[in-house]
């Protein structure tokens, strides 16, 4: 019996910690965000500070990629608990729209965002974009490839990497190529990549770190991945692809209101905040260096200015979203993890 009171004190400690005092908020809003936690969290905290509305975020994990959150929204569609979906790309948001899981909302703050980055009916709005670029290790690459097709060049056999093209922005990129080039050309391209022994890895950041570590010479990634490692002083450089042709694929963040979400009023306020120029500038100033889409926004860092000047490949996103499944079916067979 000598340890009863010890056990009792532990149980009390557990109960006390479980019943901690919550701060008082003026309501709450649930957001699922695929944008990296390091960048999205300060923005959400600032929203709470300014409005008094508690934000309950669910972040994307390395294991789940962007599609994990989309899967959760689909899984919960009969009884949604998410109010706002902040996707770090666009095609999966359109996929949710096509499944009828989004509700239209035209934010007044989206007025100065070009129409190309918004759904005409207001189901989603794009902001703060990234580009698909080539990250390379300057110690290992003397002549930097200029086109995305160059990765299939035998000179780079076994020296290039890309993320598994079934999730994240790499899946979106593949779907865009299927849509813009036509399925046959896209299939030939990916088959050529496979023959050229392109390393398929878990995610863009893993591919980028492999470049920094010298494990591979180059990888197709997003601007934020390369920028982050460059800011850490790692041996990584960034090259814009297809500047003499179609341009670098632009991938905007998208924000959408979930149909039947439990807190629609707070959700609209959060969407308004996310679509403000303040948030775009914050994301531009972060190591992810995202390109603001609001017309007339100035005062962002020099490296973002350079990215903003790049020739952009602006595809038909809705058509590309239709190619998500066919491209995934083909690529799954091609790059099956054995």
């Amino acid at each position: 019996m000598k340890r009863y009171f010890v056990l009792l004190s532990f149980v009390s400690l557990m109960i006390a910690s479980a019943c901690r005092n919550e701060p008082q908020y003026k309501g709450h809003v649930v957001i699922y965000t695929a944008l990296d936690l390091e960048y999205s969290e300060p923005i959400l905290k600032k929203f709470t500070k300014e409005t008094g509305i508690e934000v309950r975020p669910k972040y994307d994990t390395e294991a789940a990629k962007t599609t994990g959150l989309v899967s959760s929204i689909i899984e919960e569609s009969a009884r949604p608990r998410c109010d706002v979906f902040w996707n770090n790309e666009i095609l999966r948001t359109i996929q949710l729209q096509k499944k009828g899981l989004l509700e239209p909302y035209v934010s007044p703050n989206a007025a100065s965002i070009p129409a190309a980055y918004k759904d005409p009916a207001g189901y989603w709005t794009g902001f703060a974009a990234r580009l698909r670029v080539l990250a390379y290790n300057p110690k290992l690459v003397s002549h930097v490839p200029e086109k995305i097709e160059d990765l299939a060049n035998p000179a780079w056999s076994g020296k290039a990497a890309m993320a598994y093209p079934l999730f994240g922005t790499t899946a979106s990129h593949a779907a865009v190529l299927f849509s813009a080039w036509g399925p046959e050309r896209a299939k030939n391209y990916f088959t050529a990549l496979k023959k050229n022994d392109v390393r398929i890895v878990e995610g863009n950041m893993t591919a980028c770190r492999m470049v920094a570590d010298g494990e591979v010479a180059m990888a197709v990634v997003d601007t934020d991945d390369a920028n982050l490692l460059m800011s850490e002083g790692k041996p990584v450089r960034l090259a814009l692809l297809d500047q003499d042709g179609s341009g670098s694929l632009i991938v905007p963040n998208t924000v959408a209101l979930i149909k039947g979400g439990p807190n629609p009023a707070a959700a609209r306020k959060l969407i308004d905040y996310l679509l403000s120029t303040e948030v775009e500038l914050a994301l531009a100033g972060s190591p992810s260096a995202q390109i603001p889409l609001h017309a007339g926004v100035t005062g962002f860092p020099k490296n973002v200015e350079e990215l903003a000047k790049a020739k952009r490949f602006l595809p038909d996103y809705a058509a590309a979203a239709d190619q998500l499944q066919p491209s995934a079916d083909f690529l799954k067979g091609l790059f099956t993890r054995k």
Partner: protein
Amino acid sequence: MIPRRHVLSMLAGWLGPALVAVLILLPLALYFSDFLRAPARTISLMLAPGELERLGRLFARTTALAILSATIALVLSVIVFAAAEPALARRRLWPFLFMLPLLVPGYFIAIAWIQWLGFAGTLTQWLGPAGKWLPNALYSIPGVALVMALKNYPLALGFIYIGWRSAGTSSVEVASVLMKPGRLWRLFLFGWIRPWLGAGWLIVLITALLDYTIPMLMRQHVFSVEIMTAFNVYYKPQDALALALPLLAVSLAGAAMLGRLLSRVEWPVMARRPCRLPEIGTISKKILNVCACAVAIGSFVLPLVLLMRMAGDWGTFAHVIAGGRDQIVTSISLSALATAAVLVFSAGIATRGLWRRGGQNAIARTLTHPAISAAAMLVLYALPGSVIAMAFIRFYNRPALGAIYDSGFMLPLGLAAVNLPVAWLIFHVRLSEIPKTLVELEALEPIPPARRWLHLILPMLTRPALLAAGLVFILCMNEVQTATLLVAPGQETMSVRAMTLLHYAPDRLVAAYCLTAWTVALVPVLILAALARLGGHFWRKLVPHHELD
């Protein structure tokens, strides 16, 4: 009419098992009934063109990794045991140090080894061209198996330790007169404690089969990684189930063998002093000591030093603590809640028969008929956390149960389901120490439940309850697989955040976060241990000679 006190006893006896059956086992049963309702659909998925070959490769890789890892872990644990045996007997710092890897998250060890031997690893860079083979070796099946073994060998060591206590002191004394030390050690390892070695190997095998973080971080596509991908990335629950079935076949077979083995062994009285094994020759002892030091360095010291070096200065920790205050509080709260649930559930199951009133042989029944409970616990232990989480999502995410799904209790419930068998085993081992004479006495003269509990069961169970609470709390804090799937919005745990940050955050931040997460997990347990020690001193002063010790 049944007297009210009988009804209350019955209710108390059935509370734990009923809660486990309704809250945990029912969702799992319904999830697997999906397969039983339409087996053809799942089987056709498994037999799809190319899929069978993929499953075959996955199966071969997963089992090879687990078998290799379990074997290496067993060898490491024998080395550590032989080197540290006198210290184990005296309960000094060594045994605690060798058990530490069990309390360290898998990602902690994996990150450190990648930082050490990866493509940009410290040693790889230092060796230059001579070290080019190191990363490939690290990311190979033997390399990953070694890292997993360094994490899991304390499980096997624990079983060797139990086996050692089961060896009779007099038998060892007689044998040490008749045999040379080497032969006695062989007899000890491959004769007396062989079943315990087998149990240790099996428990590491099952743990390795279900491990998710180390294979995921070290780029090994095994079943647990693919199941998570199928459910969480593609949202294909049927595919996830089809992938889970071959894994379950192996892990359940392992669990059945483990259960059979453990049901046949004679559990020792842990409080008894273990036998003293003969001294090993000087040279062998030196070699063993070097090997044991290498194990300690590889499993704990190296990860700790490397991560501290990666984290850099204290400013990084301050940044992590300031930014992650919510996660620290959430992790502790949810893990504490899960620990409390595990204690209630496991103690309830382990002691179900002891609540009986009026009937005879309550103790005997509790000790000799745990077959259903044991089977349920072994099945639960053999299930990957992702499968448990998927079953919970499918069951609780419905309008009628929406209040539970949204409440934030999902994660503690999931963590409780994953860790329940650990606590149950601790209680079960302790209860099996009830003397046979008492069982026989109780058959003649039934003891009222209140007396039985007050004078026998509670004093016996407080120490294992403390052990179970500490262990389960740390395991809950470190859990990733279930937490990733069940975490409610706004309730992110530290382990989930560490895994999230791994993706893109700077190395120093990841390292600082891993170290902070681990420290936060350890602190409440250290406080608990200190309280237990203080409590002991306090009680000894209060009651100089206590009947129950």
